[in-house]
């Protein structure tokens, strides 16, 4: 038996945005650099986590199994260790205006304690990274992807004025508790979190330690992201998982959950070759910024907003049972290559294969029938709206 493809975010080379190398070992032995350990390394191993290289660290891809962990998170509460992600504090004189030279959001009028999705852009409008930025008083707390964090810090330091400082909060771990029971579980550990609205954060205290908690996540479910001093992370994870409604969940299910939720993964669905308009992330381009421009790539991005982009990110429903994965080609009825799959797999919730990718804009309408080609085999597919599984975020006023 061969390991022909090992895709998704468990493969370190792909996490860095490099396409699958064709190495039949899936890069399993290509551990050229030393892997770092995260604060919860021993905690994962004790709980049976299967550790794999990811973003320069050893991280748990699964515990009992991706399918069971995925379904558990959709029904109960799943605890994810995302401490590989970069937590940054950007501060200094004129920080809000300075951030607007890197990203297309409205940082000057950003409301306090409200995380906002934004994009670090290259001069040609390509995406350097996607991130969450939250104004905390005079500072901005920014969470970037793990595989790209060092490059992001470099870009920020090079391009921000001297009075603006980027601090990498290395001593902080980051946990995410996701699922419909997340609020019930976390409220017993950190009273008060249930009062947070969706996309709202604030500081809390737990056993004398400061926590920063926001009601946000990457699964399409209600849930929280918790920044905790690394020294207290294992104790907090224990406290959460002492509730039988909560279980630790690996990176494998994190990937299948976010795919069902239609959320792009950096290095796969978005990268330097995609723009926010191609990727369907125009909600991250603020109204005032559309009028004023002044962000990297604004000429191209504003023109694409007006006239459309040549390609669009869409969802696909795939006929049959076989997963179609990253790297598969999208073909039109005449066999012409019109796009490519950037993420794909078997949906545990829907029990069928789903995929997302880019396709020429004139073929991007819902319902368009296309073919996908993977390893010489053709699959029937149809463009469908995303998310594949409806989001169930917490809305104020809703029960």
């Amino acid at each position: 038996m061969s390991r022909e493809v090992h895709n998704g975010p468990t493969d370190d080379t792909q996490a860095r945005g490099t396409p699958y190398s064709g190495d039949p070992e899936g890069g399993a032995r290509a551990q050229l650099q030393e892997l770092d350990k995260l604060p919860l390394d021993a905690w994962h191993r004790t709980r049976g986590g299967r550790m794999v290289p990811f973003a320069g660290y050893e991280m748990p891809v699964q515990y009992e199994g991706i399918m069971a962990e995925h379904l558990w998170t959709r029904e109960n509460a799943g605890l994810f260790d995302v401490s590989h992600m970069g937590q940054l504090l950007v501060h200094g004189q004129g920080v809000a205006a300075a951030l607007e030279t890197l990203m297309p959001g409205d940082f000057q009028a950003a409301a306090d304690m409200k995380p906002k999705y934004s994009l670090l852009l290259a001069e040609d409008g390509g995406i350097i990274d996607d991130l969450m930025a939250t104004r905390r008083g005079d500072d901005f707390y920014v969470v970037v992807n793990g595989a790209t964090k060092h490059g992001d810090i470099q870009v920020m330091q090079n391009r921000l004025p001297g009075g603006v400082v980027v601090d990498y909060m290395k001593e902080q771990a980051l946990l995410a508790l996701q699922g419909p029971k997340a609020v019930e579980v976390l409220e017993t550990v950190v009273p008060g979190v249930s009062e947070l609205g969706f996309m709202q954060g604030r500081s809390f205290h737990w056993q004398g330690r400061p926590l920063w908690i926001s009601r946000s996540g990457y699964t399409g479910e209600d849930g929280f992201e918790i920044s905790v001093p690394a020294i207290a992370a294992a104790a907090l994870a224990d406290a959460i998982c002492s509730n039988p409604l909560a279980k630790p969940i690996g990176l494998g299910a994190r990937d299948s959950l976010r795919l069902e939720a239609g959320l792009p993964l950096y290095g796969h669905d978005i990268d330097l070759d995609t723009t926010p308009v191609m990727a369907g992330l125009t909600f991250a381009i603020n109204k005032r910024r559309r009028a004023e421009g002044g962000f990297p790539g604004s000429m191209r991005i504003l023109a694409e907003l007006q006239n459309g982009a040549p390609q669009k990110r869409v969802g696909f429903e795939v006929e049959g049972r076989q997963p179609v994965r990253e790297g598969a080609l999208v073909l039109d009825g005449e066999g012409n290559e019109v796009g490519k799959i950037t993420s794909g797999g078997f949906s545990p919730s829907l029990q069928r294969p789903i995929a997302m990718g880019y396709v020429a804009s004139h073929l991007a309408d819902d319902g368009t029938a296309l073919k996908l080609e993977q390893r010489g085999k053709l699959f029937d597919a149809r463009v469908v709206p995303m998310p594949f599984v409806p989001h169930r975020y917490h809305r104020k006023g809703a029960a």
Partner: protein
Amino acid sequence: MTVYFTKEHEWVRVEGDTATVGISNHAQEQLGDIVFAEVPEAGRKVSKGQEAAVVESVKAASDVYAPVSGEVIEGNSALADDPALINSDPEGQGWFFKLKLDNASELDGLMDENAYRDFVASL
């Protein structure tokens, strides 16, 4: 009846000149939740070391090689609807295909159960 194993984690159970092929318990553990399997149809000739079947889990796609050469007598049709049989009973109901052996001497280079267990322990 004897069971042999390959270094690529296939097993082959031989009864007379009929060989049944599947993937080992170790292989299914490594793959995780299996969501798709494609097995060869009766009549197809496969040679030792050649891709004969496909197995896909949530995370990975793999080819299953023919451990020995021969003509396929039957593919396990139960796997199309219930590929998880490979997880639950990899060396029983989760078999992939049966073939008529071309050359029984090809079995000589394969491992027996104890040798395979030692091989897996060494990985």
